[in-house]
């Protein structure tokens, strides 16, 4: 099997900054907009997304390589990926509750919500589409998670500022948030030419 010739570390940093899953692919937008009102919750959700993204990308890579591709079951890819994501979220919820009740408290209701976060499924599908190796996929998943986390924390911080800013009334709330996201996306995409991760 031929894997693309990209250093996994380059892929890792690229998926955080230049090819940020949120700001270049606009995946996971709904929770991004609704949760970013509060910094603490954003942080919690960011951690949860990163954890789930990394683990599910790895698991889905294994299933893709040893089950889906050899058996030519490409049309089942979506359903299998989603089942894996749902199961991992369940297991992770139980483990975090036991191991670190404090983190569990911070994540709270966000953890189950991640099951339906399209960024997670998106990363798994990209990893398959771009034919990444296992190491590349895991670092791509981890990087995308961190990128998502970074983006939501940054947005939460900016929204804290815009709360008291003289925003024209019709743009208050979601309006100014979407404009902010647009500007953030431009800033992130600005570096996109430096590395090509496709």
């Amino acid at each position, binding site marked *: 099997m031929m894997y693309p010739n990209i250093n996994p570390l380059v892929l890792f940093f690229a998926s955080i900054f230049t090819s940020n899953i949120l700001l270049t692919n606009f995946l996971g937008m709904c929770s991004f907009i609704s949760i970013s009102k509060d910094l603490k919750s954003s942080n919690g959700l960011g951690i949860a997304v990163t954890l789930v993204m990394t683990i599910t990308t790895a698991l889905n890579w294994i*299933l893709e390589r040893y*089950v889906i591709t050899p*058996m030519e*079951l490409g*049309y*089942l890819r979506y*359903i*299998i990926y989603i*089942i*894996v994501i749902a*199961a991992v979220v*369940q*297991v992770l919820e*139980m*483990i975090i*509750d*036991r191991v670190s*009740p*404090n983190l569990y*408290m911070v994540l*709270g*209701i966000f953890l189950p919500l991640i099951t339906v976060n399209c960024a997670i499924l998106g990363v798994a599908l990209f990893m398959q589409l771009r034919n990444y190796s296992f190491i590349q996929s895991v670092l791509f998943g981890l990087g995308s998670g961190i990128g998502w986390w970074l983006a939501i924390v940054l947005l939460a911080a900016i929204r804290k500022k815009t709360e008291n800013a003289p925003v024209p009334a019709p743009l208050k709330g979601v309006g100014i948030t979407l404009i902010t996201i647009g500007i953030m996306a431009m800033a992130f995409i600005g570096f996109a030419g430096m590395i090509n991760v496709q």
Partner: protein
Amino acid sequence: MEIIVAPLVVSVISSVLALMIVVVDGIVNNYGEVEIDINDGKKKLKVKGGAPLLQTLSSTGIFVPSACGGRGSCGACKVKVLSDVGPHLPTELPYMSKDEIKENIRLACQIKLKKDIKIYLPEELFNIRKFKGIVENLKDVTYDIKEVRIRLVEPNEINFKAGQYVQLVIPPYENIKEPTQRAYSISSSPSDKNHIELLIRLVPGGIATTYVHKYMKEGDVVEVVGPFGEFYMRDTNADMIMVAGGSGMAPIKSIILDMWERGITDRNVWYFFGARSKRDLYYVELFQELEKKWPRFHFIPALSEPLPEDDWKGEVGLITNVLDKYLSSVIPTDNSKEGYLCGSPGMINACIQVFDKHGIKDVYYDKFA
């Protein structure tokens, strides 16, 4: 071939993942034995950890009131927690006032038992049990109110304060697939420890009342949970002004019978019962008999819309108007007064206004909601 392989692959993957969840659940959610210390060692329970506090308590026979059955949507199962179980969850906060948060009041259905816990429960909750009983007698006291008399079997005795209520467990029937619980005041006297009598008015379309009126038969086995409630006679010397309508008769009847039986006959009691016409009146003879034997007890039934054939000689008008009239000109004003109300929220609110007008501030009530 593919038609077999594809579902097989999905099933195998799902099964493996499900197995993984079960195994992790078995290992991770095994919290072993946990001790619940209630009221500073007054009661210590050794229970299996991992489940919510509310469920665990009810499995050991302690029933914390909960209207939603532990789904965190009614906010009724408040319990004071004395040990550290972590900060309040986002699901609890909407039901808590600032003071309650400070006092570490928690929703019992939202706290998972992971380690030993110390809690405080009001003494009366220890009294709450699930009773199994047999419907001994079903009687129509008016065209839409049934008197349901239940003989308790297991346990066969109940201790309650006159005025309190129980939750009747309605089994699934027709389209109702889940057991439901509804609260009804006990209308019998506390001295009759082996029985619970309820007065249940048919509410069109009501899950529980339809069951009682259309499906319940004598000899049926039923379950009740209780007793609950803060509506009972306060131990003072004030005159008691009691107002009821419809099946609001139940707790008032229990209180009056209890007072008579215990010889608390030195207090002035005025009992106003509001009905539309004569066919809505019931237990009139019982109270008129009592009136003859108990000089300080006064029973005033009032009809708001008496029919010509009723040949009604008693009070006419809305119960609030009759109450206002009596408070203004009939009832002596020398002694302090307490109000006891039971009926629809509309009637209760209207009566509270009348009480307010006459300066009666100590008002106790049970609103039907």
